[in-house]
């Protein structure tokens, strides 16, 4: 279910690392909690994000949820497809529903994040 090469946060974001780039999205758990996503607000390319800074907003019919950056860095790409097809966040949260890509500034921050094993254990704790 949850890819084993991602890092995860307690706020249910994920980041996939390729070289010095990190692709960021929200987890399957997060999209299930939200329900049908109908609106996504993303930062502009070039925005500098601090660790845990708000990168955008995801709204379902009923709920508004902030999304935080799992790592600091500069936004180098955003998934503009989400403007017209926000449902991608429900359909493929770990793939086509990616939100932004950033150039990672400090990869030591990754140590603050959870591995897939840790995240799955964290989710089990939430469900109890």
């Amino acid at each position: 279910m949850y890819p084993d090469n991602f890092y995860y946060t307690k706020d249910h974001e994920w980041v996939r690392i390729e070289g010095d780039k990190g692709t960021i999205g929200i987890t399957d758990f997060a999209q299930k909690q939200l329900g049908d996503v109908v609106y996504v607000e993303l930062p502009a390319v070039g925005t500098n994000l601090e660790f845990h800074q708000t990168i955008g907003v995801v709204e379902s019919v009923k709920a508004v949820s902030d999304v935080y950056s799992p790592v600091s860095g500069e936004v180098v790409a955003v998934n503009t497809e989400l403007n017209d097809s926000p449902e991608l966040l429900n359909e493929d949260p770990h793939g086509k529903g990616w939100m932004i890509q950033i150039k990672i500034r400090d990869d030591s921050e990754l140590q603050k994040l959870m591995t897939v094993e840790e995240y799955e254990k964290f989710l089990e704790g939430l469900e109890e």
Partner: protein
Amino acid sequence: MKRTRLNLTHKKLGAKMIEFFDWEMPVEYSGLIQEHMAVRTKAGLFDVSHMGEILITGKDALDFVQYLTPNNAARLTPGKVQYSALTTPEGTFVDDLLVYCLEENIYFLVVNASNSDKDYEWILSHKNGFDVKVENQSSCYSQIAFQGPLAFGILKPLTEVNLEQMNSFTSNWGHVAGEEALISRTGYTGEDGFEIYTLSQNPEKIWNVILEQGKEDGILPVGLGARDTLRLEATLMLYGNDIDETTTVLEAGLGWIVKFKKGDFLGRDVLLRQKEEGIERKIVGFEMIERGIPRPHYPVFIGDEKISQVTSGTFSPYLKKGIGLTYLPIEYTEIGTMIDIGIRDKKIKTQVVPLPFYKRIKE
């Protein structure tokens, strides 16, 4: 937390449950948008047993209902239903409600879950001088709403009641799936449909039999989430959002439930004065022109001036855009007026549109 008799049925269906005014209720089952569209195109089944029921009986029952509510209850013959309100002396809402005339001098009031205790106390506190008996039967009844264009055809074989002869806003006692029930051709979705009240200890029989009967047609159980988006598209007021003790019946655009000629009722003087002098503000609907979803309490701007706030707002699954309601000073209520909604740190353009947002095409 209070639970309806269908609580376990919802959990078995995998519903996401939430707390709603001290009730544990299903907010969605298969997904809000899917459930919403099922009601618009097929049919959907709702557990709304949290709604309150108050019975007024006795020699003065009609006079008492006439005094408490602005609509003309004298027009109700047994089996007829009307939308009305419990009004304060200021012409504002204690609650909005349905008034059923079950028999001569027997009136059944269906009120909001969040208000049922308050309404009961309010009614009791005004009964002096009226020969009536008032009973809060809220915990006795289960209520199942079955709404959508296919509801009629699916329900028909499950009851001996002749549904063909039931017009909109009428009710009839009978059985559904073998359980005794009051069947009412009313609803809160903008679609044709029924609300089924039962004292049965096994309301899940009604629920399960309807779901089974409509399975091939693709009907769905529907949660409170879609109930809210459906009622907002149809521009049916929600107490606590769009109407409350600070908004008058006329300001809420519900002048059609105020019958001044019927005689005295609570709030009549204020409402009559408002009618003669004209109201200063009125509820309006708006649609987003730019991307964004309005939510309750978001600020409403005309130019730089914050003049109001959103009372109800959502993404409309049917219209696929943001819609909402707000009260505006009367000079800004014309269709086409541009207003801005403050969403986070931005002002998003919207315009005043005709209400309702959605109206079904009647056959």
